[in-house]
C-alpha cells in the first residue's frame, strides 16, 4: 500500500524493471501513465459501443419500417408513407436517439459486468482505504514463479512503500 500515486507509479516501474509481474492496482482515481507500465491492454469498450450503436440503428430503422410503413402506413402531414427511403428524413432523429441510447446503455452495462461491479455484486477490493486516499499494488506469487515470496517482499520493501500485507490465498 502506498500513500501517493507518484510513489506507486515509481514502485511499479521499478518492480516491472526487475521482471516482476504486477497483478493489479487499486486506486481511488485513474493514475496517468500507469496502464502501459503494468501491462494493461487498451480497452475494447469503444468497439463494443460502436457495435451496440450500429445494432440500435438497424433496430430503430427496422422498427419504424414495420410500425409506420409496413404494418399500418401512417399519413402525417402528407409525407410519403409507403416508402422507407422517401420518408427517411423524418426517421433520422429517432434513429439517432435510439443508436445513442443503445450505445450508451450497452457500454455502461458491459462495463459493469466486465468489472464485476453490477449492483449487489460482492466487492473484490483488498482494502477499503483505496476508495479514499490510499493506493494498493497487488502482486501474486503464483504469477511470479521466477521470484520466491521473500524476494518479492524484499523488492517491495525496497520501494517507497507505506504498508505491506502478505495473504495466503486458497
Amino acid at each position, binding site marked *: 500500500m502506498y500513500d501517493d500515486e507518484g510513489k506507486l507509479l515509481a514502485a511499479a516501474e521499478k518492480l516491472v524493471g526487475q521482471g516482476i509481474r504486477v497483478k493489479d492496482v487499486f486506486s481511488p482515481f485513474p493514475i*496517468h*501513465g500507469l496502464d502501459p507500465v503494468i501491462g494493461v491492454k*487498451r480497452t475494447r469498450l*469503444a468497439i463494443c459501443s*460502436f457495435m451496440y450503436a450500429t445494432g440500435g440503428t438497424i433496430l430503430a430503422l427496422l422498427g419504424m419500417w414495420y410500425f409506420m410503413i409496413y404494418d399500418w402506413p401512417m399519413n402525417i*402531414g*402528407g*409525407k410519403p408513407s409507403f416508402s422507407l427511403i422517401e420518408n427517411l*428524413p*423524418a426517421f*433520422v*432523429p429517432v434513429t439517432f436517439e435510439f443508436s445513442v441510447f443503445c450505445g450508451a446503455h450497452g457500454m455502461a452495462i458491459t462495463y459493469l459486468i466486465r468489472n464485476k461491479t453490477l449492483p449487489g455484486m460482492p466487492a473484490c477490493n483488498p482494502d477499503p482505504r483505496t476508495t479514499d486516499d490510499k493506493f494498493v499494488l497487488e502482486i501474486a506469487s503464483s504469477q511470479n514463479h521466477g521470484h520466491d515470496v521473500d524476494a518479492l517482499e524484499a523488492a517491495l520493501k525496497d520501494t517507497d512503500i507505506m504498508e505491506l500485507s502478505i495473504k495466503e490465498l486458497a
Partner: protein
Amino acid sequence: MNFVIPGKVKTLSYILMAIGVIALIWGYIQGGGEGGDHHQRWWSNMVVDGFFFLAIGLGAMFFYALQYAAEVGWSSQIKRLFEAMFSYVPVGLVLMMIIVIAGQFGIHHSWHWMDSSVYEQGTDTYDAIIANKKPYFGWFFWVRQVAYLAVFIFFARFFRKQSLLEDQVGGTEIHYKLFRRGALFLVFFAVFSSTMAWDWLMSIDTHWFSTMYGWYVFSGMWVTCMIFATLLTLWLRHKGHLPHINDSHVHDLTKWMFAISMLWSYLWFCQFMLIWYSNIPEEVQYFTTRFFGEHGGSSPYLVPFMLMFFINFALPFYMLIARDAKRNPTFIIGVGIIIFISHFVDVYLLVIPGTIHMHDFHGFQWWEWGTFAGFFGLFLMFTMRALSKAPLVPVNHPFLDESKHHQI
C-alpha cells in the same frame, strides 16, 4: 530558430497563384458567353473563394480566442499556426469588401437586393419582400461591413502583437490580457459570424431565410480551419519543426476535425429536415433550386449537393471514429484533403445556385478550380510568411510546459 519557408512551398504557392491568375483571366474572357450577365459567373466565383478562404482565417481567430477564453493548455504549442492562418484575415476582408462594393456599383449581380429598382413601389421590378427588408439592407448593411473590417482587423493585429510581446517579456500579465480580450472577441464573433453569413451568403437567395444558416456556415468555417490546422501541424512535425508535438496533440486536433464535422452534418440535416417536413413554399425554394431542374428532372446541383453532404458526414465519421485512426497521419491526411475540398464544394453550392440562373448554368468549369488554386496559393503564402516571422513555438506561454507533457 525561426521557421524558414522551404523553397518548394514558396514555389508551390507562386505556381498556385499563377494558375489562379490565368484561370481568372480565362474565366473573365470566357465568362461573358454564359448568359452574359456582367461576368456573373466570374464574380460568383470571387464570392465563393473570397469567402471560403476568409472563413478559414476567421475560424482560426475564433479557435485562437476560444483557447484563451477556455484556458486551454495543450494547444499552446501550436498557437502560432493559428496566428499564421489568421494573418490572411485583413487581406481576405479587403477582397470581400471589393466584391461587395463592386456589387453595389452594379458591376455584378450576386446580391439581388443591391439593385435599387426592387425598392421602387409601383414599378415592374418592385419586390415587396425585399423592400420590407430595406432597414436591414440599407445603410445598416454598410455599417456592418465597416464593423467587420474594424473589429476583425483590430483583433487579428492585437492577438498577434501581444503574443509576440509575450515572447519578449514573459510573465502572466499578457496571458490574462489575451484571456479577457479573447472572451470579448467571442462576444463579437457570436454576432458577426451569423450576420456575415446572412450578409454575404444567405442574402443571395434574398427571399429565403433560415434561422439555422448562421450556425451552419459557422460550423463549416470552423471545420475547414481545423482541417487546415491539423494538416499544417502534421506537415511541420514531419519536417521536425515541432519536436514536442506528440500523438496526443494530433489526436486532439483530429478530434476537433471529427467533432465539428458532426456538428456541421447535424446543422445541415436540421436545416434540411425542418424545411422538408414543414414544406412551406417560401422555405423550400432553397432546396428545390438545388434538387429539381427548371422543367422537371433533377438539377445539375443535386449530385454534388448530396455527395458533398455524405462525404462530409460519413467519411470523417467512419474513417476517424477509431482512436488509432485519429493518430495515423495517413488516415488524417487522406480524409482531411477530401473533406477540405468537399467543404469548398459546400460553399460553392451556397453561392452559385443563387447567383446563376439555372438556364445560364452550363456545368462546372475547369477555371473555377484554377480560381480555388489561386486563392489557396495566396492563403498559403500569407500563412507561411507569418509562420516564418516568429518562433514557431511560443517562448513564454505559461501553459507551454503543460502542453509538452500532454498525454491522453
